[in-house]
């Protein structure tokens, strides 16, 4: 019996690995997700054969949780994807915390390794739970997305971390008599999750979500050590590792270290350092913009979070279709950290039926920028800020950007002249070949579409 479900766990692990591999390629990704779901099914069915399980309890939990998850997944809008990933992730972290806690209640006489695993499952699970919930609240704008900083934050965090470590050590030394230390660790981890995410602002969210994703895997892995369960360990560590890679990619795309993201509260501290910007802002009406676009043979759209806010992806696709019908080559340049989660813009454009071959990365589009007639920046700011290349004193300096300032003409669609999330002035707006088109992104694109249609009629 024992070896039967161990074999099932091996099968499940293999399915997860194959699923992940397939998830990494566009043409196999959807099937890969299904393969991984089958792996999950195999693991769950095998576990149901464990003797002593309370089937009524499990069935009730599966029905309630499954229904909530399924309905949520169906109803949610694509623009709400970042917060949805965050909340599901938090649920997983919470489950790992509870597994550690409940196991302790049943078998408090733990050996040291199990005790260490329990404390790790509880600490990391707790941070994942409340951290993800706060990330969800910030992303869905239930609380402000700006970094929230208070004076002695770092001191408080350091103290809490010390308390967590202290109670962890005390617990591991004597698990059976150490219930109170476990409870302290639970409370501290929940607090830490909130405090760690509080100072992190909207533009850094892709990094935080990736990191929390990684944590939920590590927490599951730790829970696996608590109950000696191989499939938990394997699946958890796969997720932990992949989350770490995504985090690293996001950090690289912003030219920042992880420590800098977690501890500095970007945007709250960097107002004064940028150089004064010279030049003049040249606004352009959508009518005039139409004449430029009409004559263009190469157009690159550069979407940012503003496109998501304005829900302008369908209008953008409509305009792109008209431009293509007019003989222009259309591409979309996507910066890895544009939006609020890794790949955010890709999802929105996919929703609008943009074929993924038209989506290009900065490294591919930048060398061709001189031949681009019009670069249309839609609600992106920091990822096109030339100060990242030119101004050594800029906090953005060194960040890889999409170099739209080198295109023949650059349109910037923007509500107003307010600086972007980072609070850094954008010299792009003052460049001689830049034209500002003020207004709501969706409305402006709609006007451009109307101009094209009028001309055709």
């Amino acid at each position: 019996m024992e070896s039967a479900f161990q074999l099932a766990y091996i099968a499940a692990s293999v399915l997860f690995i194959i699923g992940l591999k397939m998830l990494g390629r566009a043409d196999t990704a959807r099937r890969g997700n299904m393969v991984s779901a089958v792996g999950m099914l195999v693991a769950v069915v095998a576990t149901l054969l464990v003797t002593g399980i309370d089937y009524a309890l499990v069935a009730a939990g599966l029905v309630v949780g499954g229904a909530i998850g399924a309905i949520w997944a169906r109803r949610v809008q694509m623009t709400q994807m970042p917060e949805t990933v965050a909340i599901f992730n938090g649920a997983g972290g919470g489950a790992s915390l509870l597994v550690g806690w409940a196991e302790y209640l049943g078998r408090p006489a733990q050996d040291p390794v199990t005790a260490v695993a329990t404390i790790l499952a509880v600490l990391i699970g707790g941070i994942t739970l409340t951290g993800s919930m706060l990330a969800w609240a910030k992303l869905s704008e239930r609380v402000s997305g700006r970094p929230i900083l208070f004076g002695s934050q770092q001191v408080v965090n350091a103290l809490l971390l010390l308390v967590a470590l202290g109670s962890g050590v005390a617990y591991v030394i004597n698990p059976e008599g150490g219930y109170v230390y476990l409870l302290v660790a639970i409370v501290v981890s929940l607090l830490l999750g909130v405090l760690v995410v509080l100072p992190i602002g909207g533009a850094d969210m892709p990094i935080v979500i990736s990191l929390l994703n990684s944590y939920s895997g590590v927490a599951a892995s730790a829970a696996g050590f608590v109950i000696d369960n191989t499939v938990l360990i394997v699946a958890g560590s796969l997720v932990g590792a992949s989350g770490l890679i995504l985090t690293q990619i996001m950090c690289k795309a912003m030219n920042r270290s992880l420590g800098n993201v977690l501890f500095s509260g970007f945007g709250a501290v960097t107002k004064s350092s940028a150089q004064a910007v010279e030049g003049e802002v040249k606004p352009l009406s959508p009518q005039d913009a139409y004449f430029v676009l009409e004559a263009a043979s190469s157009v690159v759209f550069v979407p940012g979070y503003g496109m998501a806010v304005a829900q302008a992806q369908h209008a953008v696709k409509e305009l792109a279709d008209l431009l293509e019908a007019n003989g222009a080559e259309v591409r979309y340049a996507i910066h890895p950290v544009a939006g609020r989660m890794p790949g955010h813009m890709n999802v929105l454009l996919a929703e609008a039926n943009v074929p993924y071959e038209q989506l290009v990365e900065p490294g591919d589009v930048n060398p061709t920028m001189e031949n681009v007639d019009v670069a249309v920046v839609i609600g992106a700011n920091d990822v096109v800020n030339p100060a990242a290349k030119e101004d050594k004193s800029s906090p953005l300096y060194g960040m890889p950007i999409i170099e739209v300032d080198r295109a023949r003409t650059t349109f910037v669609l923007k509500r107003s002249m307010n600086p972007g999330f980072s609070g850094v002035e954008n010299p792009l707006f003052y460049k001689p070949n830049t034209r500002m088109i003020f207004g709501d992104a969706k409305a402006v694109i709609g006007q451009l579409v109307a101009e094209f249609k009028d001309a055709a009629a």
Partner: protein
Amino acid sequence: MTILLLLFVFVLAVFLGLELIQKVPSQLHTPLMSGTNAISGIAIVGAIATTAVGGTFSNVLAFIAVVLAAINVFGGYLVTDRMLGMFKSGKKEG
């Protein structure tokens, strides 16, 4: 000895995970994140096994764990599938 074997499995799985994800194109980052997020719902296995522990309070915790993990699993896989269903290649369709 068992624990060493488990550690061995853990370390190998971490390296495998690092290798698997290394070269994923950025357009797939969101589905990848959401798909791995669903896999982290594997905590559901732990949650189910924990209902065997017994004791009222322990059962309450185990029940909540099953609910949370089920939200993670069902929500995670379904939302990833929905998202990937929208990714289309221009070569196949106009």
